[in-house]
């Protein structure tokens, strides 16, 4: 009898751990392993590495409930859990992307945090110069006259949101 109870307990333990992991596949190709926490107002709540993320159903390809089927890109690193939470800081924000006429959530953008003490040779200025070159090249080729009043209005509104320098935008008109 004890053995039977032990086996049942063992099976329940393993089945619970099996169902505790879900995978979320987004239409942009990203896959995340975590826990599906709920669904509200056409939005799925998904716990990924301790952070509760919200995804609109329109951005989701599928949700996999069976852990055995989960094939997820290995996480680059884990958020340190061996530190007292009071000794940690929080960083958060909003990432959007300008389409032709409006700003949309840039869902799936990867945000990396690298401790500068481990990157002695890293030169931010060089990276910025490289980035500016690509962006300049891109806009030089693709920036064409559009309904400029709508675009500038969107930029102006967004500038208010991010406290950006609006004077430089006025020069574009």
């Amino acid at each position, binding site marked *: 009898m004890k053995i039977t109870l032990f086996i049942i307990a063992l099976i329940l333990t393993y089945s619970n751990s099996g169902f505790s992991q879900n995978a979320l596949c987004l239409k*942009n190709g990203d896959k995340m392993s975590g826990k599906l926490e709920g669904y509200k107002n056409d939005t799925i709540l998904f716990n990924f590495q301790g*952070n509760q993320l919200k995804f609109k159903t329109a951005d989701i390809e599928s949700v996999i409930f069976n852990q055995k089927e989960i094939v997820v890109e290995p996480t680059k690193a884990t958020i340190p859990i061996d530190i007292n939470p009071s000794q940690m800081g929080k960083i958060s924000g909003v*990432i959007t992307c300008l389409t032709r006429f409006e700003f949309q*959530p840039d*869902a799936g953008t990867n945000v990396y*945090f690298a401790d500068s003490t481990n990157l002695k040779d*890293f030169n931010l200025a060089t990276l910025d110069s490289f980035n*500016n070159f690509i962006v300049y090249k*891109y806009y030089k080729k693709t920036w064409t006259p559009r309904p400029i009043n709508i675009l500038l209005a969107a930029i102006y509104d967004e500038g208010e949101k991010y406290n950006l320098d609006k004077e430089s935008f006025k020069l574009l008109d």
Partner: protein
Amino acid sequence: MDAKNITKTVVDGSENYSANVKSGIYYVLFKSRNSTRIDKVENSEPFKCYKVNINEGDDVKMSYAFGFEYKQ
């Protein structure tokens, strides 16, 4: 960058991201997926990097809008 020393998170469908990190000076890199962009010709994964100091108990807000870059 050495992957061992990097923490990664992903922007959700409501345009938000957040992470808890131990105090220190960090390079924060946003690498866009441009999932909603219509005119992706080249530079389909633009990026932006910042250096930020995060102290104990800080709640740092750092936002970015891809598409503003032409002002630089």
